[in-house]
């Protein structure tokens, strides 16, 4: 059934070449204008809050619980309140949409993520996440061995990953093409070592590395790893192969927004050793994904909350007045402010915002490192193929500051490939985060477009002719970075403790920015509040 293909393709190719030559002769060029814009203006609102001068509240609303922040942690807190029968709450979100780092967009071609785009299979310690997936029908039940059965259209479809290396695409992200025995040995030794960490239990019997992170062992030997930069640890352990270092840096930048020299060894190893999920119908390393990324989870969790989620309301002051907390928020659309009078408040914001609103922890505020990011969504006429491995979900190339792109409609079940949306991730870690953030927020759309299209030229030289739209989003404080010493110190667990009537929920409280941490903290905070409101 393969007959005659090559000849036909050759003919089609020659016809194409002739047409091109003709176009060249007659000066026909097909330079299309790519449209697009910088999406989201949260930084501007954020800076107004920081700089003050917002109007005083002109109306009040009384509500038992106010959740400040509509990211994953805030939605989780709301979810926990509802499941415990507490219906009197509001979730205040500064942005136009709830979801935080899991926010997503959509156009005529596909839905697409603006941030987090997948969830690993939850491991044995991530009970709250597993429960959510069961509620949402992502986990359908258990098989005879007690392993969860996942909905297969949500498991990332094959082919999953490809890497552009030496002029062609290879399957998988671990460099493989043209490696010498030494490089290969270094990679094998590293993965063997990580497999050991994955199995290892600390002196207290808890897993060495777990998700959520607080379920990890307290073994001092393991925790000491937090004080060393991951790059130093790799060097000390003799993991020096160039391909290995590239791969490890890629992974660190992917999860933490910074390379191995700026994250702690504990965090670096956590990336490789903490995912211990299992499934009846997928291998352990499988992940869950949707066209809109984790935005799918956001929509499902948000839907039953109805109008209790208030978007476009930026909280700028939280004050205790006797037994009442006054939460003042600026309505970005209406340009006026209002106050919510609550019995309890859940601060589900990044730590630097919570600390500023509560006027506390000035030192921690200065020391916490946030990685700035750029995310772009490109709508294309067709899938960008290329020599070697076929288009995959995750497509990465070496020699780029970016992490490559994912194909947003990879999970589509349509049998004929059509137009597509590519989500492009660029951690802005070339300079220190403060400078990078300032520069990024000042840049024009044109300069982002040129940089992104230049980067795409490495694996896809003709891609810019295919691009219809290109939108970008700049995340000034994209995610908390697990800098050396930031995870296992006495201060971090304290920051999650309630202060009076104020409770805390955010992945920042874990020090790494992943869905599971945010969800677990949100559920915990929601339970704390519900238990106080309904004493058993």
């Amino acid at each position, binding site marked *: 059934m393969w007959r005659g293909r090559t000849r036909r393709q050759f003919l089609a190719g020659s016809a194409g070449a002739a047409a091109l030559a003709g176009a060249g002769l007659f000066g026909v060029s097909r330079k299309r204008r790519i449209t697009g814009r910088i999406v989201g203006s949260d930084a501007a609102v954020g800076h107004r809050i920081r700089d003050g001068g917002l109007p005083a509240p002109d109306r009040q609303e009384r509500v038992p619980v106010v959740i400040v922040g509509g990211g994953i942690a805030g939605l989780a807190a709301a979810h926990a309140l509802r499941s415990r029968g507490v219906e009197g709450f509001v979730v205040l979100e500064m942005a136009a949409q709830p979801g935080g780092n899991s926010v997503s967009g959509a156009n005529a071609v596909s839905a697409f993520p603006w941030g987090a785009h997948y969830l690993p299979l939850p491991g044995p310690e991530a009970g709250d996440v597993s429960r959510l997936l069961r509620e949402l029908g992502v986990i359908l039940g258990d098989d005879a061995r007690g392993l969860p059965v996942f909905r*297969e259209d949500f498991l990332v479809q094959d082919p999953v990953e490809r890497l552009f290396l030496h002029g062609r695409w290879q399957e998988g992200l671990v460099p493989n093409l043209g490696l010498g025995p030494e490089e290969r040995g270094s990679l094998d030794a590293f993965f063997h070592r990580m497999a050991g960490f994955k199995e290892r239990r600390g002196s207290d019997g808890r897993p060495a590395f777990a998700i959520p992170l607080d379920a990890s062992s307290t073994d001092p030997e393991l925790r000491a790893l937090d004080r060393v930069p991951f790059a130093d640890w790799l060097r000390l352990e003799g993991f020096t192969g160039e391909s290995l270092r590239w791969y490890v840096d890629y992974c660190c930048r992917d999860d933490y927004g910074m390379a191995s020299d700026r994250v702690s060894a504990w965090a670096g190893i956590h990336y490789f050793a903490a995912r211990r999920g299992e499934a009846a*119908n*997928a291998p352990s390393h499988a992940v869950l994904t949707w066209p809109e990324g984790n935005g799918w989870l956001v929509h499902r969790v948000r839907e039953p909350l109805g109008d209790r989620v208030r978007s476009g309301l930026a909280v700028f002051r939280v004050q205790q007045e006797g037994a009442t907390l006054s939460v003042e928020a600026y309505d970005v659309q209406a340009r006026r402010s209002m106050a919510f009078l609550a019995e309890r408040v859940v601060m589900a914001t990044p730590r630097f915002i919570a600390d500023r609103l509560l006027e506390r922890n000035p030192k921690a505020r200065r020391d916490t490192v946030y990685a700035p990011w750029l995310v772009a969504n490109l709508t294309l006429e067709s899938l960008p193929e290329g020599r070697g491995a076929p288009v995959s979900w995750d497509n990465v190339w070496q020699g780029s500051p970016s992490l490559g792109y994912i194909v947003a409609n990879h999970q589509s079940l349509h*049998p004929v490939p059509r137009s597509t949306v590519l989500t492009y991730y660029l951690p802005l870690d070339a300079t220190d985060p403060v400078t990078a953030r300032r520069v990024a927020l000042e840049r024009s759309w044109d300069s982002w477009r040129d940089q992104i299209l230049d980067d795409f030229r490495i694996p896809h030289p003709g891609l810019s002719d295919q691009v219809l739209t290109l939108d970008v989003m700049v995340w000034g404080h994209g995610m908390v970075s697990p800098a050396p010493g930031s995870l296992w110190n006495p201060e971090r667990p304290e920051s999650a403790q309630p202060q009076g009537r104020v409770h805390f929920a955010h992945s920042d409280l874990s020090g790494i920015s992943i869905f599971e941490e945010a969800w677990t903290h949100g559920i915990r905070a929601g339970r704390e509040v519900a238990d106080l409101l309904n004493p058993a």
Partner: protein
Amino acid sequence: MSDRSTRLLLLASVFVIATCGLIYELIAGTLASYLLGDSVTQFSTIIGVYLFAMGVGSWLSRFVGANEALIFVRVQLLIGVLGGCSAAVLFVLFAHVASFRVLLYGLIGLVGTLVGLEIPLLLRILKDRLEFKDLVAQVFTFDYIGALLASLLFPLVLVPGLGLVRSAFLFGALNVAVGWMTLRVLRLHGPPARMLEGTAAVLLLLLAAGFAAGGRILEWSERSAFEAPVIHARSTPYQRIVLTRHGDDLRLHLNGNLQFSARDEYRYHEALVHPGLARMPEARRVLVLGGGDGLAVREVLRHAHVDSVMLVDLDPEMTRLFSTQALLTDLNAGALTSPRVRIANADAFAWLGTNTQRFDFVVVDFPDPSNFSLGKLFTTTFYERLRTALAPGGAVVVQATSPLVARRAFWCVDATLRRCGFQTEPYHVYVPSFGEWGFILASLEPLPELSALPAGLKFLTVEGARDLFRFPPDMDRVPTEVNRLNNQVLVRYFEEEWGRYAP
């Protein structure tokens, strides 16, 4: 040379050019109905355009001045090269140009205009050598006799003996020869005449080369791609549909892959439908996924107990073609226009997602899993969705590639269906144009034994149908993984096994 012999030679040239003129028209008409189908329309429009163009040519002759002899020679040479190459050009370009009709009618219009110039110019050349009444009588006599000769030669000698491409080259050469002879007979001299003589020689060589290579041109244009003349080609948003015909062998190719050959498709489609459906005498509602050619539907409709057939095919052009084209509706016995049949042009995965009907029997006749997009239609997720469309006691049959060439791919489909809770009965059949081909009959409950088949089958018998379920050792079951969206092992098996077979 005497005046009399000059006259005779010129009148002979009327005879030759009349024959040539009609031959080009016939070639174009045949080619058009060959390539585009619907011969009545093609012949009638080709003849109309050609005659009209001849009229234009005749009218244009009034603008030719005193140098009519030289112009006449030029016209002969032009007709020779254009007409001579017409069949080859049309064949070669057919599969590769976007608007074939523009090319076809453009070429016909041009040749017709030039042919229309011939007779008026010749009349003018001969006017001083003959009485007017003799001139008119003789020219038109030769003209019409030439036409008769052409119309007899064409179907009886030229098409069967030489084929369209070589016939065109031959008559092109005759036109050039007439031009060259005219130069000689009229003793035309001077630089333009010498140049024309040289051109004529080059053209003769060219046309002779074309004639000699005619077979190979055909091979290159047709056989390289499809092994037989293309009679219909169309690109839709979903695929490239090409129909070829060689004698009575009509073939359908989708994206260059053979889908059926009319010579043996009955083996494939009888085997696809009846071993399952004939064991379900109560089946009333049948779903056919893929198979927009209506051939599986044709077999389903042989079962009188079936009162409705739902056909879901992605490409509206496929179902339109197979509902309207006479050649094709002859083949599928008008299955797609049967009152028992409804058609939905939709993606099967999405259609199953919104479907609420239940079916007693489902025919799944998708293209082979040759890429990741098609591979999705053979996964656990797809078969789970398919289960929801099955009535209690219902059954499914799945086209599952060749168990001989792609043994693991075939058994992988079987393993995938079993993982979804189906009981399977794999079977296979020999289809000459495909080779050994495999199907999997899958049901949730055991099916009764086969006891009778519908009348009118060319291949299957009750005895023979039972034999299909026996697998010789070289294609017997092998252990495989289950095909899921997140591993797509089937595509990997398929690529490896077919790649080895035909690299």
